[in-house]
């Protein structure tokens, strides 16, 4: 379950590679593995089917050129990856600013998608670029949504227009309308309207957000969607597109470990660009959207770029600089460095998540699932029981030294041994990394990654995309009582 997608895919490509010649039935088998993998990633079934057909056709077309050489699997992988990036990255663009300020951005989406937090993040993002945004509290529905926006606004230093208390009191359309006049007189150049969460099937509330839209005439309507969303993403996105309509998509909660297949479903179905990603509870956890990263995430191939970025955040600048300096001098990676890194990594959050972001982590599934966070604590106590000399050069660690360390740390000698072994392995990797850039090929291979995939993950952007209309499905309530009523009516 944890990484079946990535293991399936790596499995599919490995078995292809071992065949030598690829036949059309190999392609069928690979396609069915990719299908299962995409479904596991929550890509909507209809989108998966269309996607697989495209891959099959393109792979078959490429078949004649695949007859020789050893890199057939690589070619098919490239086709898959390119297709994904194309769908995800279609028509990527920035927010359109109004000719006559204020530029109006309106947020819409389901309950709990993360709109209010996002409003704050957007405000900060644009304020940091020299704009003067105004936040508008038009969610008068959810208890204390107004208070929440006020707190958020205060912490990013952006004023909040909130003439109504909310909690069911006030007219969200009026608030939005008044905010425009207010922004004009106070010379705010941007207005960000937070709206209440609503369901796609709730026609009454959909009408309400349409009414708000009609009075503020937004330059951008952003559809805010939780990256953890499953198959319902297509019905919901369609309902919002047909209802209030939207110009761009924002994915939230990308700091989780969901594969985020909903992004592909929505991009494909609506043809609207995914513009931003929201990836944490802090108001700075916000970024523009990177289609290449999302593609490898959906494929379960890890998100190396994000990993690197998070690592940069977690490793405090000084320690990193020190390490880099050591590397530059040609000094060896020591136990003290190892400990420092382990500590930084524990700051970065769950180890399994971290490792899970590495490409081909599927192959290391066992180790990842068995990773014990308390190991960091144990390791620390062992390293701290070593003398400076031992930390610099573990080769001096003979039996009696190891026994002394174990005693000092309150651990068994085996624990000391296993730490030294792990460290030696890590040291070897670090030496290799210093020679080449990035992950050593031996390590990549050990993880079962097709050669050269690293480059594919690094990726390139493709433009142009046709929004494809998919079969319309009538939305029905999941609530048994409502459903029964709908079926009667």
């Amino acid at each position: 379950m944890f990484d079946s997608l990535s293991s399936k895919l790596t499995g599919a490509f490995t078995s292809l590679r071992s065949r030598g010649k690829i036949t059309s039935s190999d392609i069928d088998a690979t396609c069915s593995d990719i299908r299962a993998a995409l479904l596991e990633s929550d890509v909507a079934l209809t989108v998966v089917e269309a996607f697989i057909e495209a891959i099959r056709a393109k792979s078959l077309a490429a078949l004649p050129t695949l007859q020789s050489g050893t890199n057939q699997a690589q070619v098919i992988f490239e086709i898959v990856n390119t297709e994904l990036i194309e769908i995800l990255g279609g028509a990527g663009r920035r927010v359109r600013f109004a000719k006559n300020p204020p530029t109006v951005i309106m947020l819409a989406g389901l309950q709990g998608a993360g709109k209010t937090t996002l409003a704050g993040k957007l405000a900060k993002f644009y304020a940091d670029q020299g704009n003067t945004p105004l936040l508008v509290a038009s969610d008068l529905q959810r208890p204390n949504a107004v208070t929440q926006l006020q707190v958020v606004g205060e912490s990013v230093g952006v004023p909040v227009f909130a003439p109504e208390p909310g909690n069911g009191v006030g007219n969200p359309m009026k608030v939005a309308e008044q905010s425009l006049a207010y922004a004009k007189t106070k010379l705010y150049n941007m207005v960000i309207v937070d709206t209440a969460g609503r369901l796609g099937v709730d026609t009454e509330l959909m009408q309400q957000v349409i009414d708000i839209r009609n009075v503020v005439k937004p330059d951008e309507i952003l559809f805010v969607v939780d990256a953890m969303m499953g198959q319902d993403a297509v019905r919901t996105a369609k309902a919002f597109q047909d209802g209030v309509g939207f110009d761009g998509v924002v994915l939230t909660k990308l700091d989780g470990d969901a594969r985020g297949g909903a992004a592909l479903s929505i991009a494909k179905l609506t043809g609207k660009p995914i513009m931003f990603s929201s990836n944490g509870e802090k108001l700075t956890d916000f970024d523009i959207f990177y289609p290449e990263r999302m593609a490898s995430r959906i494929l379960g191939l890890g998100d190396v770029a994000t990993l690197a970025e998070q690592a940069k955040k977690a490793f405090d600048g000084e320690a990193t600089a020190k390490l880099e300096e050591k590397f530059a001098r040609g000094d060896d990676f020591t136990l003290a460095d190892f400990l420092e890194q382990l500590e930084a990594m524990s700051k970065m959050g769950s180890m399994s998540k971290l490792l899970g972001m590495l490409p081909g982590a599927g192959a290391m599934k066992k180790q990842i699932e068995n990773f014990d966070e308390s190991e960091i604590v144990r390791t620390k106590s062992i390293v701290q029981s070593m003398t400076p000399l031992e930390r610099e050069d573990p080769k001096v660690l003979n039996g009696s030294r190891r026994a002394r360390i174990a005693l000092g740390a309150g651990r068994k000698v085996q624990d000391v041994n296993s730490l030294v072994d792990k460290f030696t392995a890590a040291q070897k990797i670090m030496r290799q990394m210093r020679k080449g850039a990035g992950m050593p090929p031996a390590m990549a291979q050990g993880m079962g990654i097709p050669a050269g995939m690293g480059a594919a993950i690094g990726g390139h952007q493709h433009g142009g995309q046709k929004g494809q209309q998919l079969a319309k499905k009538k939305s029905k309530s999941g609530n048994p009582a409502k459903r029964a009523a709908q079926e009667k009516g």
Partner: protein
Amino acid sequence: MGIFSQFVAKIKGQSTADPQDWQELEAELLGADLGPTLTFEIIRSAKSIKGDDAIASLTQILNSHLSAKPRDLIMSNDVTVVMVVGVNGTGKTTSVAKLAAYLKSSGNSVVLAAADTFRAAAVDQLQTWGKRVGVDVIAGKEGAEPASVAFDAATRTKELNSDYLIIDTAGRLHNKSDLMAELEKVKRVVEKTLAVSEVLLVIDATTGQNGIAQAKIFAEAVEVTGLIITKLDGSARGGVALAIESALDIPIKFIGTGEGDTDFALFEPSSYLSGLISD
């Protein structure tokens, strides 16, 4: 006639179900977020069904994936403590209020603890709900530690000898180990005073396969005893909950079907299962 019953009619007696019919059933199950693993497993079992008992057999296959554990709230002799946990935005705070209203309506005394001291205005939100449904809310000072708020709440409800203490916790993604450790601490600290009878994990019905990872990791951290599936009033059918029951044996206990305090009900397996497949 829904796809499911059409399908059942076809495999009854001399089966006339063709590949197209199987595909449709598969599409229904996948579309309800059961996920490929469980869906393929169900289809595999279903293919062996023969004879007139098709409906019973299919129902039985689906049922076999439900947990056999009881679905009633586990009660304590002392104050019954219920912790409500989950990832961000699933509907925890609303569910806390709904559960309080539900318990209060059958004559119980209920106290709420506002242990989400992190998210902006989360405490105010719970206090608003407390007023609405008429129960007391225990909150700490601003920026207080969640464990200390929960501890105070436990101590005070024990003195008050209330029937229930429901603890609202901050939304947290299961892959953040520091936040999961914080949640463990909340539970541990409460248990110095009162046993925690229930840890209810709130799963949003729109959640896809990530729900399984959520349940797995929350269960490891705080021994989840039941699920609340929220937002079943939308078009999502919440099938990942069946996958969770099947994989982790955690029973669904309640469902949320709206934003009001009465949009809440005990989980009912048969209507849930038919909701998964009748479109």
